[in-house]
């Protein structure tokens, strides 16, 4: 079963614009992570935000987490053509071995 649901499913923007992707989840979490996947390749870890954090930055990435609404957003500022990829949110639950459960992803296309 998939815990996170990303929105939108697809996003098309021009270089230099900002891209915002949202993720909603259902159960309580320990942390939430964002991954990028270029076509035909493995996933790359971008950023992790813990349940007691509200905002985190890493370079051009900004992630927010609202545990009351069970939602997160990923903002990519000043996007580049190289940012074209699929982006997935993944949640780690509080119990057990903290397995990651992935959403269906947002496909981002950045045009030059």
């Amino acid at each position: 079963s998939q815990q996170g649901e990303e929105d939108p499913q697809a996003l098309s923007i021009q270089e230099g614009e900002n891209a915002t992707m949202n993720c909603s989840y259902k159960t309580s979490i320990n942390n939430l992570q964002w991954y990028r996947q270029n076509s035909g390749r493995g996933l790359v870890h971008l950023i992790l935000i813990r349940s007691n954090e509200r905002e985190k930055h890493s370079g051009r990435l900004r992630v927010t987490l609202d545990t009351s609404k069970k939602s997160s957003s990923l903002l990519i500022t000043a996007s580049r053509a190289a940012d074209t990829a699929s982006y997935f949110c993944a949640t780690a639950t509080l119990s057990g071995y903290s397995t990651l459960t992935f959403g269906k992803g947002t496909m981002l296309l950045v045009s030059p």
Partner: protein
Amino acid sequence: EAGVAQSPRYKIIEKRQSVAFWCNPISGHATLYWYQQILGQGPKLLIQFQNNGVVDDSQLPKDRFSAERLKGVDSTLKIQPAKLEDSAVYLCASSSLQDRNYGYTFGSGTRLTVV
């Protein structure tokens, strides 16, 4: 540090044949995962190992899928017999108990096509 190694990169087999995938995780990572990613979907966990032991295989179709992790290092995932719906990318990932806040490291995956 070397990444997670997977082989082969691509495999095409006929239905009812068997296939095996291999994964070598990052040195020292105690936890190893196999995920299945069907085209257009997010990865779905098949099995999770902690050292040699299985800690979660609830979504592994055990009538046809099997996996093992030898000496807490390399792992193989086998499908026998394969069905058309097994066509997917099989991703291996590893993580460290000490670095649980740093996410997983994924391999490049094996793209399986069952015809």
